[in-house]
């Protein structure tokens, strides 16, 4: 460790900070004989001044780049100081941080130094030092460099808990425009490879997948033969490691190119289905680059829009919604003032109120103000005794929101007016007092298509203090 490691740390963390993911979840692993373990729920170790959690040491291996993606600070034509770690230098840094319980592991990403394979090779060397030499059992998230060879990607996957390949631009046209050196297949082919390898690995664990007389199966049985490139006819690899136990994720920028919220969410829905992604992250585009292709340097990052997208993402992943349900042809973007769940409820007011003591889990989850935890508590208590209206608060239901949409033992608690406009006004009034009454009135009128400029987002001040909850490590 010397002064120059410190300087590299500063430069290469600077280049990595725009990556959203910092989660350390999805792997449960005890100490492997050296230092470290992984916890399924993930652990956050600190929170930086922007309120984002610090779980992993999020850092670039190198910021020397041959690519020239318009939106990126590290692009070839950018005027910044360039540097790279040595594999052992970074491994030692990870160990000294981990030992003091500063971090949960490493999130390693890199600019494309010389070529994708050259860079991946160096990253792999670092991971091998950590895993093999130091028996490091902590969490490793590796970002795949687009264009890396299949063999290298597979190797890297065996030392990582999670892999990610960032889409960044949610449409092929945008990608062509902003990142001409990245081709869609450079992104989707490795995604496919990761998904297929994980599926292969799972199928080898499934009942009936072993030859007669072979060892009994257990979830701890890690000695698996994996055929990574069966579709391409390449030889099978035998390995002791598990391939990417915490799955893969990706990230898209919001507000850099002209996509609507609907397009973004349809894309992420497709990603969840096609590649079984664990997460699709959104990052509000922060203008760092003065380019005619991008929003001006003066525009603010669309933080509220990002927040609403995450709320919608939660609805897709945990509440059984589909992306199409959240939009109609008049509204291709999410409403900045109200969360997508209540907007959906107002548009579908006919199905309400829902009776708490009879509804299925799916129906309970449609009620604004009821989340997964409270819905499950309602179901648990219902098996033993009826749920009373007074119980709901103790179960974690947000009464002021939910009361318009439910009945409890046949009684409605929402007052007289059940028209959507009334509920909407109530909702806006309680929206932290930031909206004035006349604004509420104007909101109640039927609106023309909201021509929200993607580059000059409004209402940024409305972001709630907990708005970054979704970015947390869990």
């Amino acid at each position, binding site marked *: *460790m010397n002064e120059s*490691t*410190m300087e590299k*740390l*500063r430069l290469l*963390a*600077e280049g*990595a*900070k*725009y990556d959203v993911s910092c989660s350390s979840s999805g792997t449960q692993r005890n*100490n492997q004989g*050296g*230092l*470290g*373990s992984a*916890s399924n*729920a993930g*652990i*956050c*170790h*600190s*929170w*930086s*001044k*922007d*309120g*984002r*959690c*610090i*779980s992993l*040491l*999020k850092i670039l291996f190198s910021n020397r780049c041959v690519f020239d993606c318009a939106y990126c600070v590290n692009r070839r034509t950018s005027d910044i100081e360039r540097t790279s770690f040595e594999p052992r230098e970074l491994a030692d*840094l990870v160990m*000294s*941080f981990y*030992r*003091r*319980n*500063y971090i*949960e592991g490493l999130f390693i990403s890199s600019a494309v130094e010389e070529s994708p394979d050259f860079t991946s090779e160096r990253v792999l060397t670092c991971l091998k030092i950590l895993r093999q030499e130091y028996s490091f059992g902590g969490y490793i998230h590796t970002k795949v460099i687009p264009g890396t060879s299949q063999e290298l990607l597979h190797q890297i996957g065996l030392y990582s808990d999670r892999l990610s390949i960032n889409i960044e631009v949610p449409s092929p046209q945008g990608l062509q425009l902003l990142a001409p050196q990245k081709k869609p297949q450079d992104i989707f082919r490795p995604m496919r490879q990761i998904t297929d390898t994980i599926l292969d690995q799972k199928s080898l664990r499934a009942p009936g997948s072993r030859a007669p007389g072979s060892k009994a199966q257990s979830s701890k049985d890690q000695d698996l033969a994996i055929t990574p490139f069966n579709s391409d006819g390449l030889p099978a690899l035998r390995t002791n490691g598990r391939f990417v136990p915490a799955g893969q994720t990706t990230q898209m920028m919001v507000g850099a190119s002209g996509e609507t919220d609907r397009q973004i969410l349809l894309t992420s829905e497709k990603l969840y289905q096609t590649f079984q992604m664990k997460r699709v992250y959104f990052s509000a585009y*922060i203008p760092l680059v003065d380019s005619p292709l991008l929003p001006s340097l003066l525009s*603010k*990052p669309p*933080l509220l829009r990002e927040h609403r997208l995450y709320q919608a993402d939660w609805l897709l992943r945990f509440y059984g919604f589909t992306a199409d349900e959240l939009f109609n042809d008049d509204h291709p973007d999410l409403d900045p003032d109200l969360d997508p769940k209540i907007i959906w409820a107002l548009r579908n007011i006919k199905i309400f109120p829902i009776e708490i003591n009879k509804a299925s889990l799916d129906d309970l989850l449609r009620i604004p103000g009821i989340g997964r935890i409270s819905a499950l508590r309602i179901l*648990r*208590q219902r*098996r*033993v*005794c009826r*749920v*009373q209206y*007074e*119980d709901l608060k*103790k*179960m974690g239901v947000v009464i002021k929101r939910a009361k318009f949409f439910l009945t409890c033992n046949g009684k409605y608690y929402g007052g007289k007016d059940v028209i959507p406009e009334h509920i909407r006004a109530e909702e806006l009034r309680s929206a932290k007092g930031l909206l004035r009454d006349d604004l509420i009135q104007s909101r109640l009128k039927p609106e023309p298509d909201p021509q929200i400029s993607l580059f000059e987002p409004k209402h940024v001040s409305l972001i709630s*203090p*907990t*708005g*970054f909850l979704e970015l*947390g490590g869990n």
Partner: protein
Amino acid sequence: MMIDYLYDGSFEGLLTVIYKHYHQEKAKGIYPLDLYQVNLTVPYQILQTNEEQAEKVYRAIQKKISYHDLRRIYYGYLSNDQEKEIKVLKYLELGFKTGPTISSLHGNPVVFDLQSIEKKVSHEVHRLKGLIRFSLLEQDILYAPITPDHDVVALLATHFCDRFRHENFVIHDTRRSKALLYNQGRSVIAPFEYEKLPSLAREEVLVRSQWRTYFDTIAIKERTNKKCQRNFMPVRYWENLTEIF
């Protein structure tokens, strides 16, 4: 007649009180001996902890209610809630009537009370798994001072003893003067005070400043949101964090 029971502050002591509550006088209040203020209208009794009786209650909870609820009661006992003892007692009274379904009664105030305490304790345990900061001392010892709201040292042991299996470390609850001491395979939780700690290892200063550099660099200026930071990481934990100065 109802009386106040005073116990020695141990979990076994609390379980002994529960035993007496069922086999002698009913409890009006339950207090740790050192915190009790004599009340002229209510008689009190100082209880000697009785291992045998405590064990009986322990088994009864596990058998007639559930292991899950036993754990909840233990978490409740570890909390700093002023009325935790009486909340535990009420929970058990209800639990011995309802059996294992007690934890499904989410709307019941008695269940709600203990569930909320349990949540606070387990939340703090989870937080501290991340927020503990070790300093490397001479003689290769990792030392971390903590000042938790609840008495959670015991609940941190499994996690840290596994993760740092080949290290020597001390997690010191300076507020309660006790510590989890771990020496390569052997761990003990004991009363702990130090007269003089070994001094910091030589590289410690450099690693700390690297960590601070990283901490400052990783924040995105355009997204600064200190309120959000404090929500996740309340200021009362900051005194032991190396990155905040």
